[in-house]
């Protein structure tokens, strides 16, 4: 019994020590008069997306602070992990606002956390810049005075692909999308845009695999069975890699047009390496082909600082900081009401060009790169791409007015 107790104590001691070592690494130095911004994200649960995003933020912060900060003060981000739970994100937001005194909050990749933070922002009168979440509801049905969104939304990117699809002869379409809000929005937006451009299009099947739980073989068989002319893919992450592999092996994509929402983003294309799909029309981020201009400057700076290639998330992180800095500069203050006014119609010069935070729905006009996928030197890349300005893919002002709640 004693021996057993000793081992147990020893084990506990070892574990305890390693805990202590971990705790020792906590804590960070805080600037004296820095303007604090609360950044809430799922750093661990969505590490593949959150890490490049955070690096983009860090790059922009170091550039801005080296140039003297904004309105004479350094800018500082406080990063907090919400475990991917909306309820947790709200708690952290409360703390950041009330204890840390942040000027505004930003963050979240998941749409549901974004929506929770947006509702919080409206209730507590805090500015929330939704950088990554794609849900259309954030700026429309559930939009509010205090929430702004940077990234081009599901609707915008789906419309860009629909525009390309309308140019082809394909009539019978099949869709495959993850079985949750984002996938459903993406399919609905694509259908609406494509049918508006080409009314004779027919949707022959819709597949709805569980997100990150795709049964790729079965999905491919089901799609093949419907004999579509073209396929619209919304799956992403590990799902799209499995789908591409099974589909290629079973010849699903032979002789068919395929449109992939986000599929061209390095986050998803890179892991597929030489098995990346050939000839899909996708939205993405072809950082490898920039030859000049602000895009190139950003990519070079990023690679110099982190010694790795940027992802789309890196760009979004970078532009998040740029947007916030621009808003504070314009407001010449961190007062919430002044900031809010500053965000309305705010113009920001970013690597992809100038974007504007629209007054009518708080959506930025950040666009997306649309091109075709191919394999080059064993890597999946986008070719023949163009940058499409988001301003051209948003609904008319009347439509927006109908979508936004009456309070506007």
């Amino acid at each position, binding site marked *: 019994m004693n021996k*057993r107790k000793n081992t*147990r104590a020893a*084990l*506990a001691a070892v*574990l*305890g020590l390693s*805990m202590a070592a*971990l*705790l020792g*690494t906590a804590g960070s130095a805080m600037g004296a008069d820095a303007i604090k911004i609360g950044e809430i994200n799922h750093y*661990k*649960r969505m*590490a*593949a997306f959150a890490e490049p995003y955070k690096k983009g933020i860090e790059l922009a912060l170091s550039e801005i602070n080296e140039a003297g900060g904004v309105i004479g003060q350094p800018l500082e981000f406080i990063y907090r*992990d919400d475990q*991917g739970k*909306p*309820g*947790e994100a*709200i708690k952290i937001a*409360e*703390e950041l606002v*009330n*204890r840390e005194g942040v000027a505004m909050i930003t963050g979240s990749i998941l749409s*549901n956390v974004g*929506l*929770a933070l*947006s*509702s*919080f922002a409206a*209730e507590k009168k805090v500015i929330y810049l939704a950088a990554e979440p794609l*849900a259309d*509801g954030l700026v429309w049905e*559930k939009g509010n005075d205090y929430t702004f969104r940077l990234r081009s939304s599901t609707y915008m990117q789906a419309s860009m692909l629909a525009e390309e699809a309308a140019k082809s002869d394909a009539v019978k379409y099949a869709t495959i999308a993850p*079985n*949750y*809000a984002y996938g459903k929005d993406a399919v609905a937006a694509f259908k609406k845009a494509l049918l508006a451009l080409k009314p004779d299009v027919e949707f022959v099947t819709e*597949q*709805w*695999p*569980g997100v*990150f*739980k795709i*049964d*790729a*073989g*079965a*999905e491919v*068989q*089901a799609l093949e069975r419907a004999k579509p002319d073209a396929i619209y893919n919304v799956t992403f992450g*590990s799902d799209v*890699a*499995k789908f591409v*592999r099974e589909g290629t*092996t*079973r*010849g699903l994509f032979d002789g068919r047009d395929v449109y992939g929402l986000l599929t061209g983003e390095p986050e998803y294309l890179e*892991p597929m*390496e030489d*098995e990346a799909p050939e000839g899909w029309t996708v939205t993405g981020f072809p950082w490898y082909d920039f030859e000049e201009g602000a895009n190139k400057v950003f990519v070079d700076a990023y690679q110099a600082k982190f010694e790795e290639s940027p992802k789309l998330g890196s760009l979004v992180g970078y532009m998040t900081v740029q947007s916030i800095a621009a808003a504070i500069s314009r407001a010449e203050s961190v007062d919430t009401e002044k900031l809010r006014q500053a965000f309305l119609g705010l113009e920001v010069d970013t690597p992809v060009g100038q974007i504007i935070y629209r007054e009518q729905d708080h959506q930025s006009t950040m666009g997306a790169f649309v091109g075709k996928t191919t394999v080059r030197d064993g890597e999946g890349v986008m070719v023949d791409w163009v940058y499409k300005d988001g301003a051209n893919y948003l609904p008319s002002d009347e439509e927006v007015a109908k979508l936004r709640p009456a309070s506007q």
Partner: protein
Amino acid sequence: MGLFIAQLLTGLANAATLFLVASGLSLIFGVTRIVNFAHGSFYMLGAFIGYSLMQVLPGAIGFWASVLLTGVLVGLIGVIVEVLVLRPVYKAPELFQLVATFGVILVIQDLALMVWGAEDLLGPRAPGLKGVVRIMDEPIPLYDLALIAITPFVLFALWYLIARTRVGVLVRAATQDREMVAALGVNQSWLFTGVFFLGAALAGLGGAIQLPKGGADLLMDFNILAAIFVVVVIGGMGSLPGAYIAAVLISVLNVFGVTYLPQSTLVLMYIVMAIVLTVRPYGLLGREEVVGEHGQVGEPERPIKPASTKARVLVGILLLCLFALPLAGSHFLLILTTDIIIFCLFAASLHFLLGLGGLVSFGHAAYFGGGAYVAGLLVVHVNAPMELAFVLAPLGAGLAAFIIGWLCLRLTGVYFAMLTLALAQLLWSLVFQWDEFTGGDDGLVDIWPAEWLSQANSYFYFTVVVGVGGILLLRHVAHSPFGYALRASRDSQRQAEATGINTKRVQWMAFTLAGTLAGVAGALFIFSKGSVFPNELEITKSFDGLIVVFLGGVKTLSGGVVGAASLELVKDYLTRLEYWRLALGLLIIVVVVLAPHGIVGSLRKLRERLSGRAEDDVSTVTSSATATANLQSPESER
């Protein structure tokens, strides 16, 4: 016809991984009675390790050698986990070990992130098996055929090991009666370690063998967990052929579901499980559980007694402190405390069911989230005032518990737990998928409290009154005749029946009461956050509840509350760290190893030891408990 055959083959190929991983889980449970939550983590490790090995070992031989080697390596990791983490806690109350395995999950998640990075890895393809063959004109990947061929061999090898070898005899004997095996001189601990090795190795094999059809990513551990539990339960806990049949059944049905009912992908397996358990309560090839006939594992629970004056004064002071908290001036402190009280009430309601009722529910989040959703739906759809929504929310949750309880209570033990899980998942997928009504994954937002409660202070007081009130109510019920009847039903159903207690009805009422109070917690939650999303009724939320109840001490009256409060506080601090999952996981393991009776239970023991067991009534209880424990378990530590 060609398509039908092709679909069948796809299903059979998919069953391979599922069977390998599930059979490991089934073996581990069968022998050690440990519900190994970390099994998905072994699977994930198998994928990552297999990937790394395949990068260095070339060719077809290298590929298959990597798969086998991965099995061995993951098996060894399983051994490390068993020896370091689980062995110290075998004597703890039944199911306590799942807390330890939960700690292991967190540790492995962060370690995998450190070693392999965040990016998804696409699995290498099997050399020589990259193409397709055409069967009745349908393309079938060669690797699918390989998987279909391999699985029966694994099944046969396992069956031979279990049915025909001496090791197998011991394993089967241990599955049926561990104490008897020990009494016959078999070294149980090495038998357990061996089974853990085998189980983990199978999970690792499963992870490696699926690489050509998928890859390795950091979300796979949780993604497979529910599916393998379903397979094990449908097949019958501990039955390998059962696991195979169930894996094939689920996989094949899934393939046809994808084709003919594309929206069904989330719910199908839970529906199958619910149907199977309704028709065959112990799974397809499972037998009625034999555990429990020897009484509970570990020492029996002490009779509860009303709190001593000292304890009452202490709680009173604590309450006063709570009421004085707004004076401290920290707004965030109020928010944090509100969160903690809500979680405490949720944990207390689960503890009531688990500790006093002996009813292990794996789906308790259904009533918490259910309550929140009832309130949210009322506000969003009929514009109900907050007060009305708040009153109706617990009733809705209670109604759900009333119905689910009626369905589940026909089963006992782990099967009961699994059916509660299945039905909770059904509720979850209903909420997740029914966009127009529930908002789906985008949830319900903008649900804030009424004007008179909108200030942080007022909502805080409201939470204290309702939350603490709920906890005290549960405690009061524990001391009421109903509480006595409930414990009697838990400890000895036959004797309880003989004294005229309708045990099923008592348990049913307890289930409903626990669900109702979880609904109160859910209603408090939604108005404090202003929104609710399906994750509040997902498995992970149920697990959070289970963890804290066990961590606090399932055999103590205050365990749930203490566990919930401590974990929430610790989490609030730890999540500020870079590798908080590692830190939290290690902390949980340390606590589990040091305090195998839960925080409250172990503190009580410590106090008794320090006071030399001087306190009059305690010593008699302890000595009689020790005597019983000695009778039950020859290896008892005392």
